[in-house]
């Protein structure tokens, strides 16, 4: 008891002085000016919709009217677990995450290692590889759906030229998903490449030079110096890759619309198709809740266990 008293007294005494200091150096003014708008926007556009989504997930509601009234409890979630298309969509989303981690990031890193040095040709290649990332997702989807159009697209020109049979990979249940993965890798590897290029350029030249003088081969320099020093960039890249894969939607709709036979849906395209399009706002919200939980658990754990370790 006395200990607690002894400890709290100086803390209480220091509070007014900290407040005075904050008032003097302008921090308090900054907080009072900038925090409320940010908090308001966050509450309005993030926190409130999240709560609303969670609330709606317990209802059967078409989206019309003042609000939901037909409470169904956990029925929407029970349906999700029994719906084979949802399970497939969940699985597809995990495949996208896996491909992002195992193909997209390594490819981005490999390209970065090849072209990180400053030269005119490297600048040109950097631009070429980064352009897909700048392209709007919907435009990308439309471009690739034209490429894979076996009747009027680029594929058709090639098959006609070589006298081969026309191919329609997006119409094939086996090939539609690999095509999506190909476009997905092509679209986003440039983003990771740029992160790695920035990180590689920050590695001191004398470190590489010293390794070279010590007889290190290019592979040894990459393996034992550059890649270990890229760790902070890898940590950030992995975070963006996973979160981006979980939210993947815009590529799916123009390319396959989740077909053929709902085999290429991701969690978000499933939510859109089976929630919004079918006017089942409650059911769609339950998908949103699942997606939020998955994203939150990942983001929280990653920040707690991986990013914090990196900071140490």
């Amino acid at each position, binding site marked *: 008891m006395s200990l607690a008293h002894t400890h709290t007294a100086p803390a209480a005494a220091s509070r007014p002085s900290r407040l005075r200091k904050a008032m003097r150096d302008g921090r308090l003014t900054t907080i009072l000016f900038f925090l409320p708008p940010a908090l308001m926007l966050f509450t309005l556009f993030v926190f409130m919709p999240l709560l609303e989504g969670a609330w709606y997930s317990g209802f*059967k509601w*078409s*989206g*019309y*009217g*003042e609000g939901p009234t037909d409470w169904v409890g956990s029925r929407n979630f029970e*349906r999700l677990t029994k719906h084979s298309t949802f399970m497939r969509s969940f699985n597809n989303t995990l495949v996208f995450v896996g491909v992002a981690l195992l193909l997209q990031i390594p490819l981005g890193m490999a390209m970065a290692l090849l072209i990180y040095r400053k030269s005119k040709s490297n600048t040109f290649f950097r631009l070429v590889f980064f352009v897909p990332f700048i392209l709007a997702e919907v435009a990308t989807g439309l471009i690739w*759906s034209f490429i*894979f*159009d*076996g*009747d*009027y697209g680029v594929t058709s020109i090639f098959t006609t030229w070589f006298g081969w049979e*026309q191919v*329609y990979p*997006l*119409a*094939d*249940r086996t090939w*539609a998903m690999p095509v999506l993965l190909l476009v997905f890798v092509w679209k986003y590897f440039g983003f990771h490449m740029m992160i790695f290029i920035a990180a590689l350029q920050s590695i001191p030249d004398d470190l590489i030079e010293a390794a070279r003088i010590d007889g290190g081969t290019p592979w040894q320099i990459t393996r034992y110096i550059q890649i270990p020093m890229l760790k902070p960039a890898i940590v950030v890249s992995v975070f963006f890759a996973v979160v981006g894969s979980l939210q993947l939607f815009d590529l799916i709709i123009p390319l*396959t*619309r989740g*077909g*053929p*036979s*709902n085999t290429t849906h991701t969690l978000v395209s499933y939510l*859109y*198709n*089976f929630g*919004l*399009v*079918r*006017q*089942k*706002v409650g059911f769609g919200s339950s998908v949103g809740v699942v997606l939020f939980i998955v994203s939150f658990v990942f983001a929280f754990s990653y920040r707690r266990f991986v990013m914090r370790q990196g900071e140490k």
Partner: protein
Amino acid sequence: MRTKLISLMAATAISIPTVLVAEEVKVLSIVTNRAGEVEYIDRVEKAFEAANPGVDVIVEYMDDESFKVKLPTLLQSKGKPDLFFSFSGGLVAEQASQGVLRDITDYAESTGCAAMHGEGGKNAYSVDGKLYGLPMYASNVALWYNKRLAAEAGINPEEIKTWDDFLGQVETAKASGIPPVIIGAKDKWPVMFYHAMLADRIMGPDGYAKAVAGEDGGFASEAWVETARQLKRLGDLEPFQPGYLDTTYDKTQTLFGDQKGIFMLMGEWLVSAQRATATDGKGMTNEEIGVVSFPVVEGGAGNPKATYGGMNGWLVSAGASDTAVDFLCHYVGTENQTEAGGLGFFLPMAIGADELVEDSHNKWSAARLGESSGHTVFDQNLNPAIAAVQLDIAVDLISGAVSPEDAQDLMEEERQLQ
């Protein structure tokens, strides 16, 4: 002097907005692909504005899918449209029950607007005897075919009377090496046409109503499973153009216009649409295209004269002004509808508006609608969730991804959840 000047400025400031701010009538439409229709709508809009000074009609266009998804939110926002496009069907009742529509029964009667439309059309926009909108056009889905390719394949589609006749001709055409059927399975609804029309031919007009009410096993009844079986029979013949699962409806118009296949089950709009989208910019002439009604299924309870297609029009949103209803009456009134019919955009619904319809295929469709024993409206007769399952299973049936029994179980499962 200074006080007077300030008073004058204040009075001017107050009066300016009343002069400049016009009464707005906001109209939300789906995108139209018919060449010249947007210009026609502009003319209709300007004529109304000229006759009603101070009124500003604003028409916004949205593609079908975005329209369907955004409408529920839009109708509850301050920026809601006064008038919005509607495919009619079951959704009108849902919208009316949620209070997002204006009851225009009395107003449309008093202005003589309602009298310009027949009961059939008005019924599509009425719920419990209350009128919430007005129809604009109907469409009729039929089997269109390429006469030249049919002759080359050695078939005569004019002889098609039954579903078996059709399947027989499909088989013959397939053997000749010409793709017998063009279909846009990526959009799903063109495939659903087959499922819906087979259901009508097998069960008659009560098939949907009984299933929705859950009678005889609902959508899993033997008659519905038989419907699915018949559709699967078509799919088993593998009669579709290569890559049909990744083919959109828009692309099928081009394929039909480019003469890449023989049959296409579609509304009468296909005839003008294939001309607009064919690679050579011309497509086929009316004379090069033949048309037959959807065949009957032997032993089925359906009436061969029953038609299937759209009954599209406009709904008035809650709180819309009388001016908005006046514009609707002007837009879908006999005079403008007659012009639209004459321009070949669609089959107008206003009484007496079909006198200028000249297109031979539009006339054929109008005649079929005229002698129809009953007109089923697309998937919109169903709750959107059940309709979406119907779209899914139709594609899965023709591609062999699901058995007829499982397909109908899925539809019934969705019905039970409603």
